[in-house]
């Protein structure tokens, strides 16, 4: 037999237990395997405990209790509700109240925050420092303290209904709430709404055509004025032409309280104001940082190209600033929504106070109620952040 050396390829790796840990790939697999086992074990253990606990307490698990009568009242509701309604309806009232305060808060906080952010950049020393003091005070005090403080001031320092602070004989500020006239629409009012919808559609159609025209010929159209006229001017015109088909239900003092009109309860007012004032401070800092992030050269370049000041702002500065502002602004909007859960501290009936509070205490279904509340908040958060992410993506820099 002739001895020929065969080519055997690279030296074969012999298997050994130690290799599993020293090789990077197998080690990764081992770690993941162990993590999976550990997580499954923990979940099994917790699940087992839950089942055992339910058996021991003799409680069934299910959401049937939502159909039972709720037996409690809610002081501010957007939809029809009384103590004979079901727990499910109470939950819906809670959700609507959460959404109401979140949406109102987001709007007010954005407006205040943008104003404060611009004031913070003002060359005027007094205005600048005043905004700075406001922002620092607001940011460094817990929002719960703000809520309780505002609520305390509204309830204890405002006058009783008999000595209400009046504005124009139809707005009344009292310690029972802020009473404002509520609109009562007459049949012809739908014409105004129709005019508004038509104006809206026309305005956007016009803007689209104007853009196409500008791209093709370079001619500019008075987009802003046409849109303003179509969206606001047209409905107002129709409103007056149809003879103002709206009545105001003005609140009146009857007995110890005001009747009629719309009442903003002190709970809602204090939560709304405190959340907005608090979050506005954060938004102001975000806006300031966003505007400062736009290089001064950008403005100078735009002016050098001959763009007028307003177009410089609209076409050059604001789009770039928004790109910096949107992501943190998104998380502030989420914060307002989540902080609205502090409503329970002052008795505003939001989702945590209805289903996570009174319903939970009445039915003793801790597990189901908390699951509903957690699930709803996750849903709100994911919805808001996906909308903002979509908007953010639209604004994002298109890179090569």
């Amino acid at each position: 037999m002739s001895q020929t050396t065969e080519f055997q390829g690279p030296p074969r790796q012999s298997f050994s237990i130690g290799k599993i840990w020293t090789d990077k790939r197998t080690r990764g697999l081992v770690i993941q395997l162990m993590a999976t086992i550990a997580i499954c074990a923990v979940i099994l253990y917790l699940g087992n405990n839950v089942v055992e606990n339910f058996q021991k307490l003799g409680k069934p698990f299910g959401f049937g209790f939502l159909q039972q009568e709720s037996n409690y009242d809610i002081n501010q509701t957007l939809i029809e509700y009384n103590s004979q309604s079901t727990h499910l309806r109470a939950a819906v009232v809670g959700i609507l109240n959460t959404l109401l305060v979140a949406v109102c808060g987001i709007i007010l906080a954005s407006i205040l925050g943008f104003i404060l952010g611009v004031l913070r950049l003002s060359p005027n020393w007094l205005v600048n420092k005043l905004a700075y003091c406001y922002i620092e005070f607001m940011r460094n005090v817990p929002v719960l303290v703000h809520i309780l403080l505002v609520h305390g001031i509204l309830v204890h320092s405002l006058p009783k209904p008999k000595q209400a602070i009046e504005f124009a004989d139809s707005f009344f500020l009292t310690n029972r709430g802020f009473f404002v006239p509520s609109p009562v629409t007459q049949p012809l009012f739908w014409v105004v709404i129709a005019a508004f919808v038509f104006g809206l559609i026309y305005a956007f159609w016009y803007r689209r055509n104007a853009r196409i025209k500008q791209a093709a010929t370079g001619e500019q159209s008075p987009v802003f004025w046409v849109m303003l006229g179509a969206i606001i001017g047209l409905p107002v015109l129709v409103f007056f032409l149809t003879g103002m088909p709206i009545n105001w239900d003005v609140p009146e003092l009857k007995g110890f309280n005001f009747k009629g009109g719309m009442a903003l309860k002190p709970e809602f007012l204090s939560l709304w104001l405190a959340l907005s004032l608090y979050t506005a401070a954060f938004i102001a800092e975000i806006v300031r940082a966003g505007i400062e992030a736009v290089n001064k050269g950008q403005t100078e370049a735009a002016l050098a190209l001959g763009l007028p000041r307003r177009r410089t702002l609209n076409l050059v500065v604001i789009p770039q600033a928004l790109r910096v502002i949107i992501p943190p602004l998104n998380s502030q909007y989420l914060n307002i929504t989540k902080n609205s859960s502090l409503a329970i501290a002052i008795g505003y009936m939001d989702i945590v106070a209805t289903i996570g509070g009174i319903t939970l205490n009445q039915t003793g279904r801790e597990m189901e109620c908390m699951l509903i509340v957690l699930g709803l908040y996750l849903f709100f958060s994911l919805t808001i952040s996906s909308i903002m992410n979509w908007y953010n993506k639209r604004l994002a820099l298109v890179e090569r």
Partner: protein
Amino acid sequence: MDTATRTYAPGEYPDEKPPIGQSGFLHWVYTNLFSSPFNIILTLLTGYFLYKIVPPAFNWLFVDAVFVADSREHCRELNSGACWGFIGKRFGQFTYGFYPHELRWRVNLTFLLFIAAVLPILWGNMPKRREMLWFSALFPFIGIWLLCGGFGLEPVETSKWGGFMLTMVIGVTGIAVSLPLGILLALGRQSDLHIIRWVCTGFIEFIRGVPLITLLFVASTMLNYFLPPGSNFDLLLRVLIMVVLFSAAYLAEVVRGGLQAIPKGQVEAADAMGLKYWQSMRLVVLPQALKISIPGIVNTFIGLFKDSTLVVIIGLLDPLGIGRASLSDTKWQGLSTEVYVFIALFFFICCFSMSRYSIYLEKKLHTGHRED
């Protein structure tokens, strides 16, 4: 003398004053307050606003205030401003909650030791810093022993803790435990191992998606379901766990931002040097990532400290809880503004100093090239 070669020695001639209106107070006032018609209007409006707000507030807070009184009626008889007598009477409760009176020295001692333990961490150039850091590492155990009792000290139940002491306990524990946990979560979210990454991402997104208050409710009502039947553990501990998990998730996102800002070349260079994963993280990546995420980390800490007030909703007696309990006393009803202003002041001092410290730290650690 020839004017072209004339030289001036310093001090030989008195310096000329700058032209009037180009510097000094008047110039400052002109450029900062009255530089344009719009600015003039803005200044006047703000000035009027301040004139309307500041003197009444100052009078209410200090001039017309009553600092010693027995009841609200007594306050109103004495003067028309704020009634601080109330705070004075309840100051012990606001600080210690219902911690037994004769054992309060233990809280005070813990606080002093806490300061001694924190100083070497915060103060980089402290003499004998190394030795002191050993004490800092030991402090948590000493602190727990002093506050809870046992081993020769009289035990105190956590349900008696309250006031600013409780806020400090929640804040300090939360900060100390959530930072390492948050860093681990951030590393996990960036990991190449899929399962680890999914678990960390899921955990972070879940915690960030729900409000802290619901997590506290879970801790106070639902957590018992997940424990073996019949077992129960301290409410404060449950709350602490939830607070730690909550702020760890937020910290993880802040740290992740820092990690993403570190160029990939750094990790590759560390790999090329033969550093293992944990070595490269500990020695190369994390020092840089943490440095740039300091503002975010401190902001999360401030948030945690402020969020510690939420425990009042599940019945722990933090300053707000003490305040609300005292307000239900008929003698002092209706003084909510004073109570909340006092508590707000406490939080403002703590949080504002934290944010100032972070600015100082940022400047100290700014070792890279300065842009300006």
